[in-house]
């Protein structure tokens, strides 16, 4: 029988994790509803320790897509993976809402900008090393389009990665005369939970 739930149970028989198929469907659903970018099958596989087959995962995605047949959003497969989006025909109604609150940059964009500002000149690889995750081209495009970041050279290593720096315009937009007016960061670690101490860790 080709019911995903059953297969998942079989896979779980290897005893790795207690996630059942029903719960895993919810995890995938939550991941797709919160992701900033489309999630590929290999992204989705990271959600569980249990090794999953593509075929099984794709069936789960199709079932999930069906669950949203009657909803205001739809699950699409695009080049880089799967993602939810608003049904285009509803878009005009939503536009009535959107003219109020100013948009915000994602955490990823802000962190990338912070690294370029404080560590310039840096390559994309440097940024990825500090952030610990891949930096999508979209993020850099956003910052370049805003006129805040530009390529000012390349590093003389294999691949000749581009060196990124912040622009004058970025300083202008932040109302700074020079980078030195950026907040210095020496004292900041005191604001973070040290994580090593029970008294500091109010939450368990």
């Amino acid at each position: 029988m080709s019911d995903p739930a059953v297969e998942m149970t079989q896979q779980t028989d290897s005893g790795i994790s207690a996630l059942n198929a029903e719960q895993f469907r919810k995890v995938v659903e939550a991941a797709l509803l919160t992701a900033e970018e489309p999630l590929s099958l290999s992204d989705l596989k990271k959600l569980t320790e249990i090794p999953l087959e593509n075929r099984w995962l794709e069936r789960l995605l199709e079932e999930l897509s069906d669950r949203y047949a009657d909803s205001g959003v739809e699950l699409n497969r695009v080049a880089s993976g799967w993602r939810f989006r608003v049904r285009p025909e509803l878009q005009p109604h939503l536009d009535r809402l959107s003219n109020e609150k100013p948009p915000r940059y994602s955490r990823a964009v802000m962190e990338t900008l912070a690294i370029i500002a404080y560590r310039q000149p840096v390559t994309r690889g440097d940024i990825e090393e500090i952030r610990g995750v891949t930096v999508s081209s979209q993020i850099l495009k956003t910052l370049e389009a805003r006129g805040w970041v530009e390529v000012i050279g390349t590093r003389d290593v294999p691949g000749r990665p581009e060196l990124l720096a912040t622009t004058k315009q970025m300083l202008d937009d932040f109302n700074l005369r020079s980078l030195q007016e950026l907040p210095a960061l020496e004292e900041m670690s005191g604001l973070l939970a040290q994580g090593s101490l029970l008294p500091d860790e109010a939450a368990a």
Partner: protein
Amino acid sequence: MTQNALLLDPAEPVARIHGEPLLEIPQDLYIPPDALEVVLESFQGPLDLLLYLIRKHNLDVLDIPMAQLTRQYMAYIEMMKQHRLELAAEYLLMAAVLIEIKSRMLLPRPSKASEEEAEDPRAELMRRLLEYEQMKLAAQRLNELPQAGRDFELVQVLIERTAETRLPEVGVEDLRQAWLGLLARAKLNAHHKVRREELSVREQMTRVLRMLRHGEFEPFENLFEIEGSVPHLVVTFIAILELAKENLVEITQTETLGKIYVRSSRGNDSAD
């Protein structure tokens, strides 16, 4: 009740020393040297330290044995000094307060005065301790509540905005917060603090690289801003050295004592 269970979980280490859990704050004053600093630094201030001593030794908050408490408090202060921990003025002030209360308690109580008027010298301290403890517990409970971002994400499905005209407004504080978030995750604290002097060098590195973007050799002296102050010139010099160290520029001198030229490393392609 769940909170009590969490707080009282005996498996929860007090501190970690070299990754090993320290399961209890040792009795009396003996604390393994490695742990000491961590333990001392964990106190939020004199009230927190006093509460710790009172609770640890099972002292009665309503009838604090001042001599014992003062002695223990002073012992901790002494330890902090020995370990050269930055001792906030508040700790010393509290020491003075404790000694004062202790001495007032040694004075014979005015026998004739009515009971109500002769206030216990410890009353104010007791009130402050309890008020602080109340807030300390409140902070713990607040921190136990699931928090957006930390404990649950918010749903955000893609929406193609027709004509995105408004750009996000961002301030310096947002940048600082973004860096704070990075620090928290990556445990970069040790080597990624950024100082002001460092920023000025980085600023000059960017300026020099931008000048060299054309890919041609540029005379060394042209890279300096003539009207700059001496410290400014020094910073530019350090920036050029830093660029050379990171292989971002190439510095050449054709003959001894001759003119020095600098160009961006990417110019190498044609030279090779």
